[in-house]
Every structure is written in structure tokens, then in C-alpha cells.
């Protein structure tokens, strides 16, 4: 357990196989509190399976998955893991289209999720302040009363990131946040994600190399279910094996 000291997320020797196909092969990864990490790799490298293992959707065959040094994620289900403070954003934006931007965020605000509380709930002053902060953070302040369906693709992605933040997670897993975004939107998203890191840990899975460069964080390259290289983008870009399997193609 000592190896897990001072980590928010600790994966060691994680193996997952589907019908003989090794999706994860002795994968080891350590994320520190407040760190932002970019995970890149070709299709089938195991990026999504890694997210599934962390969020409880897939159980590893062997290996340790520890959250905040001691908490064994392999024993918990999806809801319990979400409650611990691990939020996940899927690749395709999924927001509530018939609700306004503010309502989308209000639903995601941390708090009691029971039927009776929902029936008699009134937004407190603290929640209003938090909502306004989130709206500013995801740059949707002037769209607060607009139906989410009318947002652009990029704005929907930001709204969903905002909803994730409203849940007050300690660790965010973000899957391809800039897929389908314009260059300008991509740039804004990089700034947004960077401003989140620090108080929270963020793991970003991404294909877009210019976006990863903009993030300017430590990069982990996955290949065939294990870590191929780790370090700054320049460092991994110079690695011959990385060039061979991924960048060089």
C-alpha cells in the first residue's frame, strides 16, 4: 500500500480480458491529488476500458485499483463510486435538452437525491451563488435560461463539464472533450480544464494532439493495454516506440 501513498488514483498490474482479448495488460498508473493527466493512445489501446474499470462499470480480472490511497474501487458499484467523488464525462455530450442551462446545472448540484426533498426543494442562497459561479466557469452565463437543446455542440460539452463540477467530484474522468469542436472552442476548453485542475484531479483521454499540447501536462501513452511511455509531450513524442505505434503513422 505504500506505493499508493499520496495518490488520488492508483492502478497497479490491472488486467482485463474479453474473450481472450487483453484489453488491459498489467496497466499501472498513478495520479496525484490536483494533477491533470492526458492519456493518449491509438484506437483499442485500452483508454475506455481503463475508465470503465475506475468507474466500476468493468471489473478487472487481477490488479489493484485504489482511490485516495485506501479505497478499493474494485469492490464498489457505479453509484457508490460516483458518490465517493469520481465524475465521468462520456464522449458524446449528454445533457437534458428540454431543460434550461441553469436547470441542468441545478439538477447536478451536490445534495440530497431523494424524492421528498426534490418535491419541496428550494434553491438556497449558497446554491444560487454556486450556480452562478459554475455558469461563469463554463462560459454560459448569458445562456442560463436557454433550453439546452439550443446550445451548440461545444457549449453542450461545456455544460456537461459544468454538471460534472456541480457534483463536486475530487477526480474527473473526461473522455475526448473536444471531439467535434471548432478550433476556437477547443482552445476555450483547454483553458476551462486547466482552471479546474489544482483543486481537483483530472484525467483527460484525447486524440487531438494540438489540444494535448495546449493542456501542457504530463502525458501517458497507452498501447495494447499497458503504458508505453510517460512524461511531457515533447518527451514522449521523441520516444521511438511511441512514434512507431502512434505518432508516426
Amino acid at each position, binding site marked *: 500500500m505504500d506505493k499508493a501513498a499520496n495518490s488520488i488514483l492508483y492502478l497497479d498490474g490491472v488486467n482485463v480480458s474479453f474473450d481472450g482479448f487483453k484489453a488491459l495488460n498489467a496497466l499501472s498508473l498513478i495520479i496525484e491529488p490536483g494533477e491533470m493527466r492526458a492519456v493518449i493512445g491509438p484506437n483499442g489501446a485500452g483508454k475506455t476500458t481503463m475508465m470503465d474499470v475506475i468507474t466500476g462499470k468493468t471489473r478487472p480480472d487481477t490488479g489493484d485499483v485504489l482511490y485516495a490511497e485506501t479505497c478499493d474501487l474494485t469492490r464498489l458499484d457505479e453509484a457508490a463510486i460516483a458518490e465517493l467523488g469520481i465524475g465521468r464525462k462520456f464522449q458524446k455530450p449528454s445533457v437534458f*435538452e428540454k431543460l434550461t442551462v441553469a436547470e441542468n446545472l441545478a*439538477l447536478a448540484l451536490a445534495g440530497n437525491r431523494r424524492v421528498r426533498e*426534490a418535491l419541496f*426543494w428550494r434553491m438556497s442562497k449558497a446554491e444560487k451563488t454556486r450556480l452562478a459561479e459554475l455558469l461563469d466557469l463554463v462560459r454560459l452565463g448569458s445562456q442560463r435560461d436557454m433550453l439546452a437543446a439550443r446550445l451548440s455542440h461545444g457549449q453542450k460539452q461545456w455544460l456537461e463539464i459544468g454538471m460534472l463540477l456541480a457534483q463536486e467530484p475530487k477526480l474527473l474522468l473526461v473522455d475526448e472533450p473536444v471531439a467535434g469542436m471548432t478550433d476556437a472552442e477547443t482552445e476555450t476548453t483547454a483553458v476551462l480544464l486547466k482552471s479546474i485542475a489544482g483543486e481537483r484531479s483530472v484525467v483527460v483521454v484525447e486524440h487531438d494532439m494540438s489540444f494535448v499540447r495546449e493542456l501542457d501536462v504530463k502525458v501517458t501513452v497507452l498501447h495494447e493495454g499497458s503504458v508505453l511511455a510517460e512524461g511531457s509531450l515533447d518527451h514522449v513524442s521523441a520516444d521511438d516506440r511511441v512514434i512507431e505505434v502512434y505518432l508516426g503513422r
Partner: protein
Amino acid sequence: MIIHRLLRVGDRGVLITLALLVLLAILVPALHLLTPTDSPIHVPAYAMALIGKYLCYAMLALSLDLVWGYCGILSLGHGAFFALGGYAMGMYLMRQIGSRGVYGNPDLPDFMVFLNWTELPWYWHGFEWFAFAAIMVLFVPGLLAFLFGFFAFRSRVSGVHLSIITQALTFALMLAFFRNDMGFGGNNGLTDFKDILGFNLQSTGTRATLFIATCLALFASLLVCFAITRSRLGMVITAIRDAESRTRFLGYRVESFKLFAFTVSACIAGIAGALYVPQVGIINPGEFAPANSIEAVIWTAIGGRGTLFGPILGAVLVNFAKSWFTGALPELWLFALGALFLAVTLFLPKGLAGLFDRRATKAANSQVPAAQPEAAE
């Protein structure tokens, strides 16, 4: 946020509907009771009963809208809850007949005497008291919906599968109530009612009071549905309708929210059935017919689901048309209903309520250019 929502056109529709109901509750009984029968503005008794019936159907459509329009659960068996509420009221009215029945038995309704039964089945006890019957009007449909929903939603049955089993539920109940040995009057159902709370059901005063009670019940149901859909719970059930798995991922127990909406909806349908029975004078197993539940779906779709006043409008207009057609051109009614349903589905996907909404949508769209440049930044 609530004030903002009140100003939206959909909610103006709710306010107008509430005002119209008050007007109806005053005007129709007044014109019935206070004007001479030969006056051109006199409302005859049959017309008042007919409007009362439409308002009961409107309550059924409203209850269906709460689960279908807001929570995305298409129930094809909501007529079952309506009929159960109706039977609970019918049982009370049967017990009020007392020894005035054809066989003159003070304890047993006529059909039980006819079947040579000697004592009242246990589940008929208590229905001699109005208060007990009134509680059962809510409790029986509510309990059935709760149990049904508990198992269906927990097993994550949804979409068309859920629709089919709700249809099966009402069909099964219809077959059960057709049986004489169920003790609910079999094929003939419950009828030949005499009085309610000691007042003669045939008297004009009682009929006017029943009409006013129906208006008030619809008024109250509309307010309850308004409060529910405008609360955070309303946002959650809308969220479930639009993206169920996302809602789960935010940490909401989706099945509990669905269960709440489904149970409340069944209770409203039960009240509608209970008010329907004394006004039409009969309840029989035909009310459980799957076709009835499907008709309620059509009213809701035509009026506009996902708005609260739409289903009320739809139920009243479609039934008004039905009354007119079945009088003037009886053989054409089902074709007309089918054509209407097709036309609304094709040209008015938001139903008649969408017509009122259109202007508001236009106004909102004109704000888009201002917002769009920011999106492109």
C-alpha cells in the same frame, strides 16, 4: 425561476384553464338551475351531465400526461385506474340503495341476491360509509400503481415493454371484473343508483353539485400537477424522460421518481372515475377495455403532451366531436378519430397546445442571433 416559468406561455395556458374551470363551475349550474327551460340560454340536464363527463375524461388525460408527457412512461392501461376509482364509488352507491332494490334485501345488492349469495363478501364491508369509499377511491388505484410500478421500474422495464404490460394489466382486470363470482356485478356492473350522501341522484340540485365538484376536482388536480412539474422533482422526471441513464449517473434513483409520478397519476385517474360514475349512473367492466385507455392516449396526444392544459383541451374537444359525430354520422366516427390522430401526429407533433406555443417559440428564436456569436468564439 418559478416566476420566470409562470410567464412562459405554457403556464399562461394553465392560468387560463383554471379561470375557465371556475367560470364553468359557476355558469353551467346557474344556467341550468336559474333559467326557465324554454329560455335560449338554458342548459339542459343532459348537457350538464355531458360536460361533467368530459371533465372527468379531462382529468384522466391530465393524469396520463403527468406520466407520459413529463416522465416518458407511456401507460396504455390508465383506464384501469379510472375504472377502479369508479368501482369504489359504485360500491358506495350500491350500498346506499339499501332495501329499495328490486329484491328488497337491505344488506345485499340485487345482483348478489340473484346469485343466491347469503352474505356480503368481506371486501364490500366499509363501503356503506362515504369517507371509507372516498379513501378507497385513492387507495385502490394508488396501491395497484405502486405495486405494479415497484416491480416494473425496479426491473428497469421501460419503453414499449412497459406500455404492453400496462395494456395487459387493464385487459386482465377487465376479464376478472366480467366474472360474476368476483362480486362486482359481472357483465352488468353496478347501476340503478339512488342517492349519494342522502341526496337523490336524479334531483337537479345534486346533479349541479356533482358538476361543481368535478370542476373543483379538475381544478385541484391541475394545481397539484402544476406544483409537481414545477418543482425540482418535475425537473428530475423531465430529465428521466430525456436522458434516463444520465439522470442515474447524477445520482438520482430513477425508479423512485417514476414510482412517485405513476402513483400520483393513478390516484388522480381514480378520482376522475369516482366522479364519472354518479354522473353517468353506471360502471361496468367495459371501462377496463384497452380501447378506453388508448383513447385517453389519443386525447392527450391531440391536446399536446408535456403541457398541462393541452390534454384537458384534447379530452374535451375530442369527446365533444365524438358526441356530435355519433349523433349525426355514427358510422364515420372512428374514421374521423383516426384521421384526426394522424393529422395531429403529422402536422402538429406538439398537439393543439403547440399552436398556442408557436408564437412564443418565434419570439424566443429571435433572441438566437444575439447568443450565437458567443457560441462561435
